[in-house]
């Protein structure tokens, strides 16, 4: 008896060891790259330099953020622009995902999916530079507008909010299309036909059948796109220039230009809080649960 239970205990222990070993890389990664830096940043953000190499605990960095309107305004602007960009991405991606899953046949749908994917073979920098070539004053699009007689002189299409939004939507599109495709694929066509058969039009079917079914995919796509957009540095910076006023640029400036790591760390935490807060509000408003969303997408 004792031997059997010993053997069973040994096997259980062995299984636990294997599980731990399999999880080790992920846990190590989480710890080394996420937890550790954040602990460091948290400590940094909560101290103040009073003299060279002399620090004391303080919330001065956070006080600066609220006291200085520029920081505060950039923070809100980044949040609003990210929400708008996420909404626009959803509006653009939904018809694409619909065509890929419900309209195109097998080969055409695979082709369309690859077309969505191809831009991501080049780096984000190169893609942003592509926009520069198209949109700058001496670029392709202003020249076309002059040719068509729509503008008398070449206009500068860069450095507008609309330009930043365009770039952000373009950069995020794939991350919205993928979860939408997977959630629309699982929608049985006969449900759509049944809705039509029972007298529903296109809009009623979309509202009552398609969107409720795709809700987890929509939410997952929105979370990913929103986080990517909020934390994006390159696209707002290149397409928006000095006017972009993106919050990540403030963090960069504090860390790299001003060597004020304490202030940068505080900004980093504020951004983390912002994205967490907005995602939580979004989930609450759409009635979705985070675990379900992540499992479904």
């Amino acid at each position, binding site marked *: 008896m004792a031997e059997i239970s010993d053997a069973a205990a040994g096997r259980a222990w062995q299984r636990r060891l294997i599980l731990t070993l399999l999880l080790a890389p992920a846990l190590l990664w989480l710890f080394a790259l996420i937890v550790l830096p954040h602990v460091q940043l948290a400590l940094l953000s909560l101290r103040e330099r009073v003299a060279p190499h002399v620090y004391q605990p303080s919330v001065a960095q956070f006080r600066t953020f609220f006291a200085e309107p520029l920081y505060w305004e950039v923070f809100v602007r980044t949040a609003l622009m990210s929400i708008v960009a996420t909404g626009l991405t959803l509006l653009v991606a939904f018809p694409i995902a619909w065509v890929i899953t419900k309209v195109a046949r097998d080969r055409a749908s695979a082709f369309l999916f690859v077309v969505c994917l191809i831009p991501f073979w080049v780096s984000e920098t190169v893609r942003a530079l592509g926009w520069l070539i198209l949109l700058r004053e001496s670029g392709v699009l202003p020249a076309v507008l002059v040719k068509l007689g729509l503008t008398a002189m070449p206009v500068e299409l860069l450095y507008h909010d609309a330009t930043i939004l365009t770039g952000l939507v373009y950069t995020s599109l794939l991350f919205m299309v993928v979860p939408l495709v997977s959630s629309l694929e699982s929608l*049985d066509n*006969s449900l759509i036909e*049944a809705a*039509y*058969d029972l*007298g*529903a039009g296109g809009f009623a079917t979309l509202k*009552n059948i398609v969107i*409720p079914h795709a809700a987890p995919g929509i939410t997952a796509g929105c979370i990913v796109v929103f986080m990517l957009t909020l934390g994006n540095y390159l696209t707002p910076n290149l397409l928006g220039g000095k006017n972009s006023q993106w919050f990540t640029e403030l963090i960069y400036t504090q860390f790299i230009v001003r060597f004020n790591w304490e202030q940068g760390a505080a900004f980093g935490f504020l951004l983390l809080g912002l994205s967490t807060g907005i995602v939580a509000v979004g989930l609450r408003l759409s009635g979705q649960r985070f675990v379900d969303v992540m499992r479904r997408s």
Partner: protein
Amino acid sequence: MSAAAAPGTPDLSVQALQKNFAGHVAVNDLSFVVQRGSFFSILGPSGCGKTTLLRMIAGFTEPDAGDIVIGGRSMRGVAPNRRPVNMVFQQLALFPMMSVGENVAFGLARRGIPKAERTRRAEAMLERVGLAGAGAKRVDQLSGGQRQRVAIARSMVLEPTLLLLDEPLGALDLKLREHMKIELKQLQAAFGTTFVYITHDQSEALVLSDHVAVMHHGCFEQLGTPQQLYYEPATAFVAGFVGANNRISGRVKSEAGETAAIETPDGWIVMARKTGQVALGDHVEAFVRPEVVTLERDASLLPGGQPQHIGVVQSLLFDGANSAVLLHEERTRFEFRVALPQTGRLADLKVGERVHFSFDPERAICFTGLGGSHG
């Protein structure tokens, strides 16, 4: 219900309907009429075009030519959501994101009926199909048979001129299917709505329908009552497809009035009634139903005046009242199925036993072999 149509107008009239898919004919110049309040089935093997036909009636597929007239109104250019037709889908297609009550009220909501009124009507309809009080349940809390009834209730609450059913029993297990057959027939009788039902299961079609059309290669082989299909099949395909049948291929060796003697390639000779153009020397298919054959151990007990045959028992197929025995004709070893008497007589037959059998040539039929290569 179909108050707009004049009395006597058929609920469904299909006129010279045609549909091709990439060079393949799905529905070929089809015309038929379904009378009000009847249960009409379209029976055929998969790929015969019955689903395409149903989808054209529902409006999901555009015909290439011809017209569909429902309740006296042409459906040309009418979208599925504007037709006085509802469909029960093969996989039922209940909306999983809604409660049972919301499913039933969905169509009413699309017609702009106020919430209180549509809840009341949905509840009343659920009660009629025996699901009183199930309105608040989720769809996945229901059993297969209950879902079936919800799918029918969801369509019937809209009081359609025509209810289309696309093999709705296919997904159910055998026991439930038998039960739902009876329920469907009772529901149809209670509602009095015209049902158009498609199936590949001949037993469903025979049990449920007032009229059955047997469809094959985009055409109707025969349209008639279940009894006509069973006892007077018009073509070899129908004879082979509807009910169990012994199929005997051979040539007409001699003729005597309405009956022909048919010789198989191995030289077994059977007698059968001629149907259509059958001439001496023609290649024909004869069909003998297992239940028209009399089986005896003693040849003298067989009914007089019928050609007698001798067989050897190959296997016994016990299935309660549907029990049968598989014989080999003694000389040619032609396989032949004979129903056992339901009285239990001959239940003690043994494999290898030699038996005598005969059948009335009037109750066996033969067709020329043309066009009967399937089934």
